[in-house]
């Protein structure tokens, strides 16, 4: 055994191979880390560019939207509508031209409302799976499986 160990240690090619393999292992490891880093960095950079392009696109769309709103307003402007109405043979109504009819339950509409019913939160909604506990999930499932008629509507 001692002779074997001695012979192994004495063999110079074995020592060299050991060093080469170690160095190679380090190089391979470093290359893997570098490749991984490069991959992540490249993906981040691509996403960054995409964000920049999307921001520019949002601005372009916003301007286009404003232009279209103005164009539509010009097409619906009083001067344009009057010109088109007259061309179609209409004339402004006078009080004598009107006939009023009693319609039970009719309530004239008021001024326009621009209130939006959609959420304007800028944050991305986190799925419930990330926030609810197992108990919450279990309760949700239970409620979904319960027939609608059995639920109480009071809250």
């Amino acid at each position, binding site marked *: 055994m001692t002779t074997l160990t001695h012979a192994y240690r004495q063999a110079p090619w074995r020592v060299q191979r050991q060093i080469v393999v170690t160095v190679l292992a380090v190089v391979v490891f470093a290359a893997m880390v570098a490749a991984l880093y490069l991959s992540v*960095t490249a993906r*981040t*950079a*691509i*996403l*960054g*560019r995409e*964000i*920049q392009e999307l*921001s520019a696109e949002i601005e*372009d769309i*916003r*301007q*286009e939207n*404003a*232009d279209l*709103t*103005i164009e*539509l*307003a*010009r097409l*619906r*402007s*009083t*001067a344009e509508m009057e010109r088109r109405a007259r061309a179609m043979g209409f004339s*402004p*109504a*006078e*009080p004598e031209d*009107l006939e*009023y009819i*009693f319609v039970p339950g009719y309530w*004239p509409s008021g*001024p*326009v*409302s*621009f*209130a*939006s*019913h*959609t959420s*304007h939160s*800028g944050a991305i909604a986190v799925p419930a799976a990330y926030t609810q506990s197992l108990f919450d999930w279990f309760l949700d499932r239970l409620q979904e499986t319960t027939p609608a008629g059995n639920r109480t509507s009071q809250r």
Partner: protein
Amino acid sequence: MRKQFIWRSQAVAVLFTFLGFSVVAQVVRIQNSPEAAAFLRQQSDRYAGQFRTIYPTRGEIYDRNGYLLAGNQTVYEIGVDLKAMRNPHTIALALSTHLGMDYNRVYEKLINPPQGQVYLPITDFVPAQKAEVLQQLIESLSEQPTDSSAADSPSLAGLEIRSHLQRSYPEGDLAANVLGFVTREGRGYFGVEEKYNDNLAGKPVTVWVPLDPNRVEETPKIPQGATLILTLDRELQLAVEDILAQALYRTGAENGTIVVMDPRNGEILAMASTPRMDLNRFWNYDSVYQNASEFNRAVSMPYEPGSVMKVFTMAAALDTGVVSPDTPFLDTGAIQVGGVTIKNWDEQAWGPQTMLGCMQHSLNVCLAWVATQLGPQTFYDYMQRFGFGHATGIDLAGEATGRLKVPGDADWYPVDLGTNAFGQGVTVTPIQMVMAASAITNGGRMVTPHVLYAMVEEGQQYNTPIQYAGTPISAEAAHLLSEMLAVSLEGESSAALVPGYRVAGKTGTAQIPTPYGYYTSGITNASFIGWGPVDDPRFIVYVWLEKPTSSIWGSETAAPVFAEVVRKTVVLLDIPPDAVRQKTMER
């Protein structure tokens, strides 16, 4: 052989060791020196990105039915990236040809740019069509093979076209006096644009925009400027402006104002004033207006209203019980107040009258007598309660207060009590008159006029609540007066009457004071204030024509204009004739 290289190896080893220690020493130094660390961080940040101020898109303005009155449109800034510029001659030539700019000035600017500047703005607010032509030219020249070594080869390299939004008014001059305008610097002037400038403009936010794609983040959401919904009805506004233009042509008046308000809530439905300008060409302001008060005479131009003021004198007298509609008065054609003789408009004596007759025939002598019966204290108390001499608080920029002299003022004389009673010697704005009249239509309660129906911010709509401005007279006095004015119009077969609708109102013809204190003869301000339907008022209309030439009398110039406005108003606001409405209410 190997020994020969030992010293060299040692030298290299020492050098690398030294470099290593230097790096470590520098790291330690920076770590322990906040100034050095801050400096290096600053240097790093300087090239890593830039601070950019993001201006929110200016909010839009709509009428009460959702028609756009003011929006935004893309325009273009033309500039040159000086580092990329190859041929200033081509650029100057292109800009002079397609944008009509002066070639020499542009060329001079390009070859002598300010020191250290890398981007040179040439012009701004270029419309889309022209910018598109330039863009096509840039693209066509960039596609042509050019000899880069030849300095004079045509090139538009470096010419940049950047887009941004600018205020635009799709209706041109419609409601110009109410809207106001926005300059190229983005600031609102006059009307709603000035009054709500901060809300419309929003809050600019400065954000750090990294140039390194690795550090790019989503631009924070900047809230847009608030959207405004006005109380104006676009169709009625157009009709009123047309009626005013025709009235000026017909009567020869220099200028005019018409205000239509819903007396139940103070909503201004239409407000027309001359002259008006196309808001898309706001730079013409100086050539259209002599001074700022002309932009919207309805709120900014005080004047002596004349006999329309008698409405409020009579209101005060009825409320205090000094007179009733049947109180007799013997009109002798003249009355002494404060040592000065006051006469009727025709300088005639009208004999025995009642208060109804005094209003019907617009007798100055009678109303001056009524004011003396009230006494100065009570009279001016009522006038102040009606809001004269104070701003109404309407949400439009540049409101004037007018002038109501009161006892104790250096320039008040006892005769003023008599003249003020019929609207001379006191200045008011049309909007003050409309607000004061709302007390008579609302059972004594006065409402503050407003043009903002609602403000929309981030999806939430905030409606303007009704604001009351006091109760100057009782409900009984208001009803009595309204009835008196309706009967007096019917009694004289006024041109203000509208078939099918019972209206109440009063004419006014006022002499115009000169800068020297005397009144001109033959030149007047003609006015009319009226409302209807009398039993359930849905509108107050005020008409003011300045210096009409066809006739000096309000009854012949302003009263027919009132009738025309009412005829349009009842159609556009779906107000059925009294008979139909009363029949409907009975069901």
